[in-house]
């Protein structure tokens, strides 16, 4: 027997990059976030070998969850082959030996920037959303300490005022992505920034959603089967993006979230934003159930309501 044989093989970095203390901290914070749905849990947030603001929050969560048996899917803007998604996936695999997939239904950990996939995620799956700005109140107060106090008091009056002012000025809510939503009837969250199309998918979802902002050092969760309600006045319902009549130029599909591709003649073409879904459709001709069916009906009947233009 030699010393060489007794020694552990040389490793420059810990399994899944982060040291055991950092992982322990992350896991504890995640448990706390699950226990208090929508509450922003502060955490230390370690530097990772990718730039801050490029998904380090999501990545820390994924790295603290990943194991060799994990199946990882990473998307950016819905696409698996986006350069940043490719880079994050490459890093997770390099550090963990996990398997990867582009199939939403096969992933155990799905890390995403700006999208929730079209196919319905199930129990046992974790959706990790990268978050640039965890604070839904940032627009009414830039100060994190003040915002924390407002959350503690459940004082969302300024948010309602903001929405009211939008109705007065524009006769509709004009928030784009990251539409402020009430989780478990208690905390208002800033959902990633996912488009409004994806926000309802968080409501009573079978999967666990973890939202993590590495730079801002906050993480929060939407546990499975939790109420998520976009902020809306009872007489002016929340609206998703209107993409009616948008047909994917390659698959001919409708009623899924589309990328709009400007054409030289001033018109637009459309393509599916969810590249894994498009790929599955192209190769097998069929997919699993989707949040919006082919007629555009959301799977929780009655959750989305037709638009109302208030007369003010």
């Amino acid at each position: 027997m030699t010393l060489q044989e007794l020694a552990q093989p040389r490793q420059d970095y810990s399994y899944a990059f982060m040291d055991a203390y950092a992982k322990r901290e992350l896991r504890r914070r995640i448990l706390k976030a699950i226990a208090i749905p929508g509450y922003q849990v502060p955490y230390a947030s370690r530097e990772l070998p990718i730039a801050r603001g490029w998904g380090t929050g999501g990545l820390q969560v994924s790295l603290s969850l990943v194991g060799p048996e994990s199946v990882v899917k990473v998307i950016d803007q819905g696409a698996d082959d986006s350069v940043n998604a490719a880079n994050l996936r490459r890093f997770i695999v390099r550090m963990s030996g996990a398997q990867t997939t582009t199939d939403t239904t096969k992933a155990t950990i799905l890390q995403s920037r700006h999208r929730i996939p079209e196919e319905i995620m199930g129990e046992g799956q974790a959706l990790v959303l990268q978050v640039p700005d965890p604070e839904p109140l940032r627009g009414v107060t830039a100060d994190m300490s003040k915002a924390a106090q407002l959350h503690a008091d459940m004082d969302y009056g300024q948010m309602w005022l903001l929405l009211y002012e939008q109705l007065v000025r524009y006769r509709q809510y004009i928030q784009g992505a990251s539409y402020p939503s009430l989780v478990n009837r208690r905390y208002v969250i800033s959902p990633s920034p996912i488009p409004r199309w994806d926000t309802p998918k968080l409501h009573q979802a079978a999967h666990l959603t973890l939202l993590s902002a590495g730079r801002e050092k906050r993480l929060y969760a939407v546990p499975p089967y939790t109420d998520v309600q976009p902020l809306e006045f009872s007489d002016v319902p929340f609206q998703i993006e209107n993409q009616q009549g948008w047909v994917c130029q390659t698959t001919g599909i409708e009623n899924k979230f589309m990328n709009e591709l400007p054409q030289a003649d001033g018109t637009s073409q459309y393509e599916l934003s969810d590249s894994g879904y498009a790929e599955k459709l192209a190769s097998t001709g069929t997919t699993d159930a989707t949040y919006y069916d082919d007629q555009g009906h959301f799977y929780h009947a009655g959750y989305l309501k037709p638009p109302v233009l208030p007369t003010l």
Partner: protein
Amino acid sequence: MYVATRGGEEAIQHAEQLYKAMIGKLTRENIQVIQQQLPYLLDKVMGEGSLYAPELAALALAQTGGDVYEAVLLLRAYRSTQPRIAYAAPISPDNVLTVRRISASFKDIPGGQILGPTLDYSHRLLRLDVLDGLSEDDTAAVEADTPASPTYPAVADWLRSQNLLSPVEMQQIDPVAIPDVTTDAVLFPAPRAHRLQALARADTGGVLALGYASMRGYGLIHPTVNELRLGHAEVEMTHPLTGVPFSAGRVRVSQGEVITSGEKNGYQLGFAATLGWNEIKLIAASTLDLEMNNREPHPAHSEEFVMYHTESVEASGFCIHFKLPHYVTFASSMDSVRKVISTFYSSEAPATPSSDLETIRQVQP
């Protein structure tokens, strides 16, 4: 093992390869030259990276072609995985091997003003003669007749002895119990340890911008540099078995103090210290240390504002993240804009007639 490989993955590998080809080969010799020739750059990178490792800092600079923000990120990402195996003894100004130490508060101070190595009073003329090969640079330093003292008392101690500054008591604190900005969730108001650590590793340019704004007129105080000190500190450890203290090496450290009046109990002291020698950062940071409790008259003087916005890795990372595609969020906002337009102008012609389109094309490359 199945790995989803895509066009994007290949593209990023080629892009990195192209960058490497452009900055040239990474060799031990190049790294050594950087380490020897650019100590102040190394100090800046090590200070902001909060990792004292000249060799690794030189490697980081070589690897990134001298992109300081990237180099700092490399060091930070490396250090974030390193275990804490021990804590060094606290460094006191009295036992820092001081090479430069000045005070603007007094003409002369106990121990004397020690100019040390500095470019402060040099004429900032480019040495074109050296570039043209006409002369050699003379780097020989003149040796003093009597060697200067290796250590000096703190100027602040004299002020304290005069009751001009409130006294401080040396506290015995278990190093493990010291709040650590790198492993704690930072909340505000932050403990002073977090504040000083954040300033120590803050972006030099960021601290300068906020500090300068404060000095120039948005702040409340006029800082007087009470003491600025560059030196070498022993990293004093205790042997885990024998309990004998020993030096594990020396690190370049610098500390700055500014004072301002305005309190009933005399002067107030702002303090900053960092790994490496970085005088600009220390003067700006110690000014901010004083200002950080004064949200009025300017938000740049709140602790939260200063600490968040001088974090080099976070600030630079977020800034460059805007290079990432944002077309989903943009589509979402465009949807809202279109709805508003159609609500208020639905009877009018479509928003972009072809003549307008031509104009847009000309403006946008």
